[in-house]
């Protein structure tokens, strides 16, 4: 029997993503975002996360996906990387899933562009693919803007 892993899942455009559950701090509804001038475009701004200041990254922009419709507000999926809380703006969140390592596949050939760079691989679920996001790379805006 292969090992099982837990992933926090969420939706973004037509994709189904997962982030290792232990990296996810919490999920918070949409908050006022303070715009940060001169910041990288992917940074939507700063939010007040229970009196701590966290950067909100527009995950759609980060992955080169089209923007969310104006009538919908994203959710904050707060991840913890190197001691910092960072909010990833996602369309909607799904369940926490236990998946077996047996189902793991390297990055599918069909994926192109930024999405491909920022994912670790995919799990073949029964009816869809779960793309696993490389959180460290996603929040490292400085290196990827050079690449």
């Amino acid at each position, binding site marked *: 029997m292969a090992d099982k892993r837990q992933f926090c899942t969420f939706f973004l455009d037509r994709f189904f993503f997962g982030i290792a559950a232990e990296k996810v701090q919490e999920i918070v509804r949409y908050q*006022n975002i*303070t*715009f*940060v*001038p*001169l*910041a*990288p475009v992917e*940074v939507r*701004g*700063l*939010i*007040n996360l*229970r*009196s*701590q*200041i*966290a*950067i909100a*990254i527009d995950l759609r922009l980060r992955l080169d996906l089209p923007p969310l419709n104006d009538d919908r507000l994203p959710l904050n999926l707060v991840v913890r990387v190197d001691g*910092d809380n*960072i909010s990833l703006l996602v369309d909607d969140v799904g369940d926490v899933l236990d998946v077996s390592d047996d189902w793991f596949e390297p990055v599918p050939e069909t994926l192109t562009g930024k999405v491909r760079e920022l994912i670790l691989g995919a799990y073949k679920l029964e009816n869809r693919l779960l793309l696993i996001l490389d959180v460290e790379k996603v*929040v490292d*805006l*400085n290196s990827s803007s050079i690449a």
Partner: protein
Amino acid sequence: MTIDREDLTAFLVETKETLSQIETDLVIFEQNPEDLELINRLYRSFHTLKGNCAFLSLAKLEAIAHGGENLLNTLRAPTARESSSIREIINILLRVVDIIKQITIALESTGAEGEEDYSELIAAIDNLQDFDSSPSATIADPQAETPPAQSNQEGTKTSGLTDNFMRVDVQRLDELMNLVGELVLCRNQIVQFSDLLNDSSFLETAQRLDLITTDLQEGLRKTRMQPISTVWSKFPRVVRDLSLGVGKQVSLELEGEDTELDKTLIETISDPLTHLIRNCIDHGIETPDLRQAIGKPPEGKLFLRAFHESGYVKIQVADDGAGIDLAALKARAIELNLIAADRAAALSEQETLNLIFHPGLSTAKQVTNLSGRGVGMDVVKTNINKIEGNINISSQPNKGTVFTIEIPLSLAIARTLLVTSGGDRYAIPQMNLLELIRLEGEQAVKSVEMIHGSPVYRLRGQLIPLIYLNEQLQLDQNPNRAKFKDCSDDRRDGTLNIVVLQARDYPFGLVVDAINDIREIVVKPLGKQLKQISCFAGATIMGDGRVALILDIQGLAEKAHVISDDKEIDLNTESNIAGKTNDEECQMLLLQGLDNRRMGIALSRVARLENFSPQAIERIGQKKVLQYRDRLLDLIDLSAILNPESVNSISDSTNQGLLQVVVVNLDRERNVGIIVENIIDIVDQRITVKSDTDRAGIEYAAVIQGKVTEIIDIEALIAAA
């Protein structure tokens, strides 16, 4: 052998304190060799140290501490104190302290005492003891001598208060401080909410919460405060060693040792202060011979003063030495290619003094082992700036030099001015704030002059560059901000809010949409994704729960090219904002001279542009002067000098309008006014075509804006006048 980590940490902390106390006492003792109480205290310190070492089985340390203890004992005999060897004994004891420090550092990093052999030192100690053959006669148990106070393990504290103190990990205090910061924000929100709710009992509760939070914040702030003497305690030793090393006599005077400031700040200022002290001893205070030759007492004085003033702690390091030689400083800066010779000539006294902070400058004629390696003062300034502090120098020849450091009481909470631009609020640290200006209607249009695309404001006659916050932050260009475009349009026909700020001693105006109010805020760092944006120093959470950014004025000014690296005023222009390079370009004030000739003056020399009525001109002999800012301003009539044949100079002609005068800085003391016919423009242009000219007062001719322009040589012009 392994030592319990916790025991070791406690030992190290305590030893550090004991050592610093021993150092201070030794230096005092050197001056007061008759003070037996002092010897006893020293003896007890060494004794406690020895005991602790034995407890932890630190054999080497124990042997050394024991040696020190024995040596001290010899000092109890009057013969030893009378002999000239007292300095030698103190030297050895200080070495003992140094070696114990070394070993503790080794202990801290490796957990072991290290492999060094100190038998030589111990032998030297034994040697010194020989002149008193009966040491044990005077040894008494120190515990027995002064019974009540000495049961403490602190060793350093002579009072019995020790039991009331406990050690707390600073990190724990940091965490508490963070929590209180959050409580403050939460309180702000609740108070705001209570105003809306209009419920009297809730309002009352909110007010109590307000009070308690303030007290708590203040109380916690106090627990983090330490008297500045914690850093100063090492200076008597430093001063003694340094002055002996360079053969100077220096006495140190401390004032305001009880002045308290935040622990983290105390740590940060330690190195800069040491550096300043070194500087004073090395460069400031003269040798005893020289001092006597110029009628000063042979012993130089070094003052350390600390006091609170308007929310800041001020620390002064002052000496009564030679002062800073401005000419030598300039010459050195020119020699090192830090500044061009003609720029140097134009520098004011204060600007010249500030050259000291230029990276890579050292005025010491020779490099000593203390200072003068060319690194230092710039690092001092950088370190102080890092904690939102400032450093200023004043110096008088043969009277001495005073360095004044200003640092905030605490870093976590800052007083800021809130402003709005592009619909968002920004906080400006009060440290940088000079004044606020609000211009309405006509006035707003008139007082901002656009000189070749660079907005400038005349603040009481002085030209200060203006930068627009929304332009600097590119608020108009951001598509997300498009909806706020209206706000910035309002500004154009309505009021103009200028926040006059100071970055590196240079004032500039920051134009914002609205000025809100002064607020105490809790500073929070920005994540590393945003660290590279130099315009922001951090962020904070406002009473309504929203986040606001804190502007970094220095960073903003640098971005706008209001200040550049060589600290020259550089009026910002459209081309700068667009990011074009203009390194080679130079800014010229264009004038219309006689016969419609175009002339230029380097803008770097121009202090002010003024208008005077011709009636204001008075004469002293042949000279024309003007009463200007409580002084007499010599006037030079440009056309009279450049065209002596001309009968009518500008100022003589029955001119109906006002005279335009360009005030030029010669040095700090002197200004000269040049009467010109008309000021045309300020240009920012690369000068490619140059031709020499033999006309008096003209440096060269160049082509500017497609026209031949004569560039005025101010020094030659004055000589010709």
